[in-house]
């Protein structure tokens, strides 16, 4: 297989400022609600390459999608998580596609080419399904373009035996069962009692633990929020609520000026330390 020099490869990353493409993207962003998730958007972008899906440039598609996400973020569009997951995956795929082949040898995982092929297959399959759906909606339909004979009241005059049959559809029956189930759930409903760390408990715990920390002059020790969580074997729900309650209690202390909170970037550990004011508060 031909291996391209790296500088050529990375020139692909330079965003192209094409007025027509930008206008296209605007249309896509405005109509975002009309699309059925990230795969549908990808298919729309793929169609714009105006080539047979089998000859699609996956790298170009990835770049278009990432560009689309970037613009959506710029416009502060509220994108569903699906779209961001897809973006993360495509960014990963892109890096794999751009790496020299030797560098990406990993055992029992798909090669970049196979991953791209899988994506391409999904797009082709979705395209086929969407075409089928469109064809279906344009077919002549019973009761719209094609008609059946309707039973004639006069038929009875023919002096024939009338046989009564009872009818119900599967949907009717399932819906009836669904209703019964719901009635029951409503009837037997009890408010569940949860074992949670209350705000009061959290405030008490936070003050006690921060007060007990080694203190060296004005430079208090930074400690992480995680280290303040209860270590005992508690339920997962209790640990979750502890995290939330301790954090909220922490915010309350910050508001009072008794605490400093610090976090470098999202999802990093949260650090806290007591201020001088905290000392006065705990003394008094």
């Amino acid at each position, binding site marked *: 297989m031909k291996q391209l020099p790296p500088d050529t490869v990375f020139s692909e990353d330079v965003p192209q400022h094409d007025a027509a493409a930008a206008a296209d993207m605007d249309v896509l962003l405005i109509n975002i609600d009309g699309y059925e998730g990230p*795969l549908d958007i990808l298919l729309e972008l793929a169609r714009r390459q105006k080539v047979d899906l089998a000859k699609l440039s996956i790298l170009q598609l990835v770049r278009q999608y990432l560009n689309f996400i970037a613009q959506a973020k710029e416009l502060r569009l509220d994108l569903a998580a699906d779209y961001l997951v897809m973006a993360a995956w495509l960014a990963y795929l892109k890096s794999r596609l751009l790496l020299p082949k030797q560098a990406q040898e990993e055992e029992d995982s798909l090669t970049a080419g196979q991953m791209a092929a*899988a994506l391409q297959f999904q797009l082709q399959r979705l395209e086929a399904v969407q075409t089928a759906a469109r064809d279906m909606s344009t077919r002549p339909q019973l009761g719209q373009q094609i008609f059946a*004979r309707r039973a*004639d009241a006069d038929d009875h005059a023919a002096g024939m035996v009338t046989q009564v049959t*009872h*009818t119900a559809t599967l949907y009717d029956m399932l819906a009836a069962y669904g209703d019964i189930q*719901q009635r029951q759930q409503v009837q037997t*409903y009890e408010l569940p009692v949860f074992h949670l760390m209350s705000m009061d408990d959290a405030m008490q715990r936070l003050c006690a633990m921060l007060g007990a920390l080694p203190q060296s002059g004005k430079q208090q020790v930074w400690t992480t929020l995680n280290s303040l969580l209860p270590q005992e074997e508690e339920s997962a729900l209790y640990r979750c609520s502890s995290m939330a309650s301790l954090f909220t209690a922490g915010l309350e202390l910050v508001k009072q000026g008794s605490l400093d909170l610090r976090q470098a970037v999202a999802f990093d550990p949260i650090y806290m330390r007591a201020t001088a004011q905290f000392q006065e508060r705990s003394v008094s």
Partner: protein
Amino acid sequence: MTSHTASADFKALDHVKRACEAMIFVAPQPISLADMAERMEDGAVLLPALLSLQQDYAGRGVELVQRDGGWCFRTASDLAPYLTHHRVEERKISRAALETLAIISYHQPVTRAELETIRGVMTSKGTLDTLLEAGWIKPGRRRELPGRPLTWVTTPAFLDHFALSSLNELPGLAEMKAAGLLDRRAARDVIPHENDLFATQAGNATNNIDLTPDVMENVA
């Protein structure tokens, strides 16, 4: 008078015949020449078309006849013996019968007392009678309980009517919920089960969304 865009010669006898044939076929009552003319293009001549159509159908199993000043198709009277089985009157079953049937199909064998517990209301005799008459339920074994109450089960005709090949194909509650058949979710289901909270974070996503990333696993 309506006008249509098709390019066919609307006055051609053949076209008028086809249109009349379809209009008469679909009409639930005999349809008058005037009614048909109103739906045809201006200048279409109907009577010759109808008479020609009547000739086409003469001696066939279905004939074109005039009744009450209108035109309609009627089966030839000599064929009545073949048609007796088809004189069918469809009757939609009542809500109560529907619920009862649903419970029997999901909980069979089930006694009348159990039925009433599940439905939360008394079951009138007429309800079970309707289902029996429809041939969808039948008595099953007696329950080994005081009074040896009769149980009810569904019949093969029930499966037949609902085009199911086995009882196994009745969707379960989770599947009904997924299909939108349980609309209002009980509040208790909305709150995640304690163990779910971290389980989903850990990655073994419970719902099978499978975005393109069926390849996603490779990211790890």
